[in-house]
């Protein structure tokens, strides 16, 4: 069995760990995806199922991840192998790979945010005449590779400093700073003339829309993507939780904290859109350039900053802090993705710094195609975004295989728990999560077959096809199943069931 050379480190306090985990959950999706999905799904009508799925999807899975990490003290492969049995360790490898594949292109996204931060600081962003052309010329150049490399280097440096001096300290600075930035932007946004119209739109429900199953599926998808539940990232950080650390209350703090940030970002964006682009603003969010994540952040919002009252200095200030916040949100999530991959190799007996050098180098190299091609980027975002739902299913499977009630009693309600979780949790993790995983995957495949690519949905070389998902997932799953015994031998200690 491999002996790990890792020095045991733990988060120094509950608050250090909570801020780090909120750093995982709060990403660019809270800021740029939430608002446009709300706009496309009937405003207030979307928020009701969004809250229901916070309770039905995010919280049970975050509890599971916290408990699995603290209980097994292993990264995704070792954790699933220990919990469900060694023959299922490949599922842990798949969970880890999905998050790592996302890391490859998420580093590119963090780079875009940093590029726009520098453009805003220099004043060039708000003096440009054509934001579409600016975005096109940037993404069509080699510049994204430079910013992708910078983001990866920053992330790797934080991981190099370790759990306490790197991950905990960085999040202790960046997360409160991000909150101050979002509050500053929110105060400015809601005090703009006409902002109230936007807030009303955000909270006005339409009962007709509320009965539309598509709105419910969009709300479930938003929870699956933006809370970090089921990704394996919280599981990885929980390996460094102190033995006396609580599970359920920390999970609630993470989930409600994450969605609180989404709401704050939503209030800010809706106020700004309705105040500075009355009439066409919401149409832009629903079907214009703002209807894509990148279109909203890098094309539409810079146009709105130019219209902000107060002159160029004020416009530059708010634009700069917006992109600073976006960069912080992206970096804190990127750091956790790097740590997940590093922890996997540490579990296999590799020294932390060697594992880090390998992950950062591979992360940079495999991110290059996404930095150079938006088509490649979009394909990867589609494939591994849906892959996350499979990951959520595998986490639920591992808990079921271990015994949901035993898991609840020993891992969730074990040493240090402040709040005991009742038997309702067994039902949630055994039935509700698998049903939601099934509904989500069927829904996204349905969209591919009937909406995105009716002609070529089966073709593995098409961008948004069922074929591309099955082919890429299939290759990785087969690989992990073939190497399962080897991974188990390298990762699990002698007590594991092989």
């Amino acid at each position, binding site marked *: 069995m491999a002996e790990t050379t890792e020095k045991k480190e733990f988060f120094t306090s509950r608050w250090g760990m909570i801020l780090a985990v909120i750093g995982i959950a709060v990403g660019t999706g809270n800021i740029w995806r939430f608002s446009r999905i709300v706009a496309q799904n009937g405003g207030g009508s979307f928020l009701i199922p969004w809250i229901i799925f916070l309770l039905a999807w995010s919280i049970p899975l975050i509890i599971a991840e916290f408990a699995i990490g603290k209980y097994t003290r292993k990264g995704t492969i070792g954790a699933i192998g220990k919990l469900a049995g060694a023959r299922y360790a490949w599922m842990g490898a798949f969970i880890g790979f999905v998050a790592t594949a996302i890391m490859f292109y998420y580093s590119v996204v963090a780079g875009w945010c940093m590029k726009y931060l520098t453009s805003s600081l220099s004043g060039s962003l708000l003096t440009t005449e054509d934001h579409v052309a600016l975005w096109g010329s940037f993404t069509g150049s080699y510049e994204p590779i430079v910013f992708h490399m910078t983001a990866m280097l920053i992330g790797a440096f934080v991981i190099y400093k370790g759990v306490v001096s790197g991950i905990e300290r960085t999040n202790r600075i960046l997360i409160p700073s991000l909150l101050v930035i979002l509050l500053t932007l929110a105060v400015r946004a809601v005090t703009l003339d006409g902002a109230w119209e936007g807030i009303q739109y955000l*909270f006005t429900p339409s009962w007709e829309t509320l009965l539309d199953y598509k709105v419910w599926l969009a709300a479930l998808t938003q929870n699956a993507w933006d809370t970090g539940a089921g990704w394996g990232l919280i599981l990885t950080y929980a390996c460094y939780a102190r033995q006396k650390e609580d599970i359920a209350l920390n999970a609630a703090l993470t989930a409600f904290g994450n969605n609180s940030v989404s*709401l704050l970002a939503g209030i800010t964006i809706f106020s700004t859109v309705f105040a500075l682009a009355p009439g066409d603003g919401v149409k832009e969010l629903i079907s214009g350039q703002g209807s894509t994540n990148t279109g909203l952040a890098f094309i539409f919002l810079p146009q709105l900053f130019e219209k902000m009252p107060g002159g160029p200095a004020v416009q530059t200030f708010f634009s700069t802090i917006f992109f600073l916040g976006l960069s912080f949100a992206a970096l804190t999530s990127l750091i956790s993705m790097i740590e997940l991959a590093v922890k996997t190799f540490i579990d296999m007996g590799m020294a932390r710094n060697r594992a880090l050098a390998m992950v950062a180098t591979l992360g940079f190299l495999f991110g290059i195609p996404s930095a150079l091609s938006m088509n490649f980027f979009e394909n990867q975002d589609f494939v591994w975004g849906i892959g996350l739902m499979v990951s959520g299913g595998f986490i639920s499977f591992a808990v079921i295989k271990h015994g949901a009630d035993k898991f609840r009693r020993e891992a969730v309600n074990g040493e240090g728990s402040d709040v005991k979780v009742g038997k309702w949790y067994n039902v949630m993790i055994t039935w509700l999560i698998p049903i939601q995983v099934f509904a989500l995957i069927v829904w996204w495949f349905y969209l591919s077959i009937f909406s995105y690519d009716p002609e070529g949905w089966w073709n593995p070389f098409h961008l948004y096809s069922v074929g591309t998902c099955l082919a890429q997932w299939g290759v990785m799953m087969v690989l992990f199943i073939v190497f399962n015994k080897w991974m188990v031998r390298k990762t699990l200690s002698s007590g594991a069931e092989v």
Partner: protein
Amino acid sequence: METSTVVTMILVLGTVWGGFAIALRTALKKEKQKKNSQ
């Protein structure tokens, strides 16, 4: 402003921000208890 808007606003903000505030308050209380018992 319509009644349904006010109700939704209270429901959504109350659940999400209120949920966070309650969880934070409970965590602070539990941490204080742990410190006092040490």
